[in-house]
């Protein structure tokens, strides 16, 4: 009983917290809380105007209108007509102000899906949800490797695989090399003209993880420079923009 009560209290508190800033942010801006959940009308009064060019007309002004054709990519298989991941960047900070639950249904520890659709991405509890929000914000705008991928329309599952990443998740080399490989070609690209053995993709440390240097959600750093301070190598995703 106690546990149940606490969950309800937290849910109410969360709802209040989530909605308040949105409700108060209304005056003059285009942003307001979608009301009810899953409705886009609160912000996009002229719903047709947010559709891409050439998009057929839709009935309704909420997620349900989209979901009749677009499915959430629960299996991480990039099906045709899946919801574009770019939707996130338009709606979450810094561009937007919406909380995850504006579009997503979430029962802590049990399910996380899209409002009005069956199926779940995973079972994030409160702690994991905090992590996901933090990482998602980084993905949307950090300037790190994650946001470089966000700009290319690449979301969690394309690196992390199906399901929601957990605390100790990482990305194996095979995951990176799917798009960036094969390793031999990467090594060819970064081979210095003068000293061929000073190649970060073919180092004397042998078979190492891409993530040694290329951090997803933190500052990327050239590991070589820890010892070879004079090498002057550069890396993308090195600092916040």
């Amino acid at each position, binding site marked *: 009983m106690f546990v149940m009560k606490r969950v309800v209290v937290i849910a109410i508190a969360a709802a209040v917290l989530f909605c308040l800033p949105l409700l108060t942010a209304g005056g003059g801006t285009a942003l307001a809380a979608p009301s009810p959940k899953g409705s886009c009308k609160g912000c996009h009064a002229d719903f047709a105007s947010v559709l891409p060019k050439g998009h057929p007309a839709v009935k309704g002004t909420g997620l349900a209108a989209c979901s009749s054709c677009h499915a959430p990519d629960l299996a991480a298989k990039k099906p045709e007509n899946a919801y574009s991941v770019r939707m996130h960047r338009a709606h979450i900070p810094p561009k937007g102000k919406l909380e995850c639950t504006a579009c997503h249904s979430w029962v802590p520890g049990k399910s996380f899906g899209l409002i009005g659709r069956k199926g779940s991405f995973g079972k994030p509890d409160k702690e994991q949800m905090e992590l996901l929000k933090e990482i998602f914000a980084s993905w949307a705008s950090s300037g790190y490797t994650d946001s470089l991928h966000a700009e290319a329309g690449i979301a969690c599952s394309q690196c992390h695989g199906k399901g929601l990443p957990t605390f100790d998740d990482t990305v194996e080399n095979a995951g990176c090399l799917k798009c960036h490989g094969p390793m031999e070609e990467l090594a060819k690209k970064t081979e210095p003209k003068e000293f061929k053995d000073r190649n970060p993709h073919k180092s004397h440390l*042998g078979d190492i993880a891409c*993530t040694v240097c290329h951090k997803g959600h933190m500052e990327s750093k050239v590991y070589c420079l820890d010892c070879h*301070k004079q090498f002057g190598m550069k890396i993308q995703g090195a600092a916040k923009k």
Partner: protein
Amino acid sequence: MKGNDQDEVKAGNAGGNVGRRSFLKGALAVGAVATGGFALNMAVPGLAEAAKRPLPKKWDETIDVVVIGSGFAGWSAAAQAAIGGAKAVVIEKMPTYGGNSIINGGVYASYDDKFHYRQKMGLGDDSPELHMQDTLKGGDFFSIPALAKVLAEGATDGLNWMIDDGGAVIRPTVVRAGGHSAYRTHAAGIGKVYVDALKRIAEKNGAQIRLNTAVTWIWRADADPKSPVLGVEVKSGRKISNIKVGKGLILASGGFSRDVKMRGDHYPFLSGENWNCTNHPGATGEMIRFAQSVGADTLQMNYIQLYPYADPETGILDTPALIPFNGPGNGIVYVTKQGKRFISELARRDHVSFAQIGLGPQGKPTYTIFGDDMVEKMGFTKGEIEAGLKKGRLVVGNTIAEVAQKAGLPQDALVETIDKHNKYLAEGKDPEFNKPITKAMLPMTKGPFYAVAQWPAIHHTMGGLRINEHAQVIDIFGEVIPKLYAAGEVTGGVHGTNRLGSNAIPDCVVFGRVAGRNAAKG
């Protein structure tokens, strides 16, 4: 020599310290009753590490043999534990495996090898006994003889094991290095050759590694000599978990040369950030402190070795920096900026380092001069010499005068020094520095000749955890801490005041194997 039952673990017997130990145990027991089970913690009150830590109520997992560190000692231990039938997992805090070992110079002291290179090349006699004696003498007899004996007697088997089971390829030569009285130092170019061989043996026997995983505590309930180490707390990313140790915890976490505070605390002369260091950034001493916090004894922490021949600019021990170490038995010559010899080239590392430091800051750097005909005999390839030249680490000349000119040394002085040294070799006597002359030392009469610059950099911490010949960690009362083992640079007492060059890998491999074998027995 054989049959010294180095594999047999003896249970710690109660010594004469019962009173003090009981007192300590009693004091901790009071705490335990009052608070419901705190972990033993001897850290200085007030430190974050001294926080009262309740023992884990539940363990996230149980692993038979947990090995901390993935260098020579760690992989040797994991391999041997896995061969012994235990589930072995290597925990590595860094994002890459191999620690310092993978950037080590690959020199391995052993009286013999499966190819018998020393005998085949006619480089004189050697024995484990002589290796042990050199080790004791080179460390000013501060080594614990029983430990030096294990090293010397296990070195050859360890080397052949890496060759036969791990596919390690050693170079077809044996050199005589500073402090050694025999040609016994084997070369592989770089330590990675052995790390990868050991990793292969370990992994094919089922051992696993977890990178990016740092130990943040060792769990032990109290200081009773019967009280074993229970497990470790580890941090991986943001996740903290507790691993219960089934059979043994093996500390193979290396030295503390990169722990600026720790090295300065023990050896104030080496305080501060200004010293160059050959080590990787992960060579910090937290595992020693964690072990001390559960009662482990340490010894000889103030003996910290400078590598005399590091790259003067960066402190890195690259391939050119290995030449001055490998070459003395083949006739290389060390000179000052003035082109004069300053020490016997066969002197110990500490003596060579302090001879250089004695020249004062304006004496930096000194140089090693060598000839082309020595290159392969010293364990190098022509390709490595060419790479060194391209990077500007070496200079070359057809005459000694040309080398002097390119290195910025006074030509006349260097020519005179090398001529004199050639004469000493011919006469079999070095009246200046009393270097023992051997027939394998080649005079520099025909070019090309080379010079490489060198200067001391912090390299190896001889001190560390006290162990016995079974690699069991000993507590401050002289008792074995059950289930706790250590091997390699994290331990102390094997090398005394000064480790002989090329004794580090056999130390790690031999004691790693002993620890792994014993831990697997549980």
